[in-house]
């Protein structure tokens, strides 16, 4: 359940309507609509899902059922700098878990959380396909390869020069 309650502005509801219209308000395009909406809002708050349900004439429960099925969709806003640790097999055997633990320790947060200051969010992803560079960490669009636990502090500091 979303803990964040938001009120959509007129331009935001319009935007969702436009997205739904662009897919012909087709029920079968739900996943594409959700992708586009998440691209626009950064996440999929309940209010957005309700609007989509209304436009596509399906139940909000169904939309929520789909959103919670796919790991790509999120109901909480991501941090300004989303940190993703690849936990694919290649990264795992090359020590992704220790890197992940180091991030958790340094940031004092768990996977799936967004820090209260909104700076960082931490997530795991399954194979970015850069197995040659394992273990791999992504911060926003930037990819770090062959990351060792010792590198973690430095990576975080790149985004927080003033320290934690």
């Amino acid at each position, binding site marked *: 359940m979303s803990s964040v309650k938001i009120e959509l502005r007129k331009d935001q509801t319009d935007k969702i309507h436009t997205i739904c219209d662009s897919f012909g308000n087709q029920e079968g395009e739900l996943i594409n609509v959700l992708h586009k909406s998440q691209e626009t809002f950064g996440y999929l708050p309940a209010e957005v899902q309700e609007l989509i349900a209304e436009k596509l004439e399906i139940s909000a429960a169904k939309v929520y059922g789909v959103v919670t099925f796919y790991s790509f969709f999120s109901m909480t806003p991501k941090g300004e700098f989303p940190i993703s640790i690849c936990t694919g097999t290649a990264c795992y055997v090359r020590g992704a878990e220790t890197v992940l633990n180091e991030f958790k320790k340094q940031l004092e947060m768990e996977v799936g959380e967004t820090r209260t200051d909104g700076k960082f969010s931490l997530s795991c992803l399954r194979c*970015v*396909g*850069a*197995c*040659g*560079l394992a273990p*791999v960490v992504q911060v926003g669009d930037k*990819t770090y*390869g062959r990351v060792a636990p010792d590198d973690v502090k430095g990576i975080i500091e790149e985004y927080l020069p003033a320290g934690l």
Partner: protein
Amino acid sequence: MSRIESFDALKKYREELNRIGDSIEEVQKEGGLVRIKIATATCSNAAGAGEIMKFMSDALDKRGVDALVTKTGCMGYCYAEPTIEVKLPNREPVVFGNVDLQKADLIIESYIKKGEMVDGVIPVNYKTIEEPYN
């Protein structure tokens, strides 16, 4: 480009492309045109292929080397990304691995300009569909 309306038209178009290709090779032979392909798949990009691509284009331009730099897909050598293929006139293409900015500079100065081999070459270790099997 207009639609290719028939299979014959495709064959003709292909011949035309071949002629252009041949003429590029001619130009290469005569004018010393260097052809460089840079692997730009997700893993290459993660390893910094974008940076290398930009550096190569700018540097070759600045240093007056006539070169054609294009993107290509994954060459398969993840362990040695970024990888680039350099084809000098009248030479077989050579693939260099682990190309950082320093290495890229070295490739330009030594291999491209002087034809001197640089370390870190990835040999061709596969057959193509043109080669006979067995």
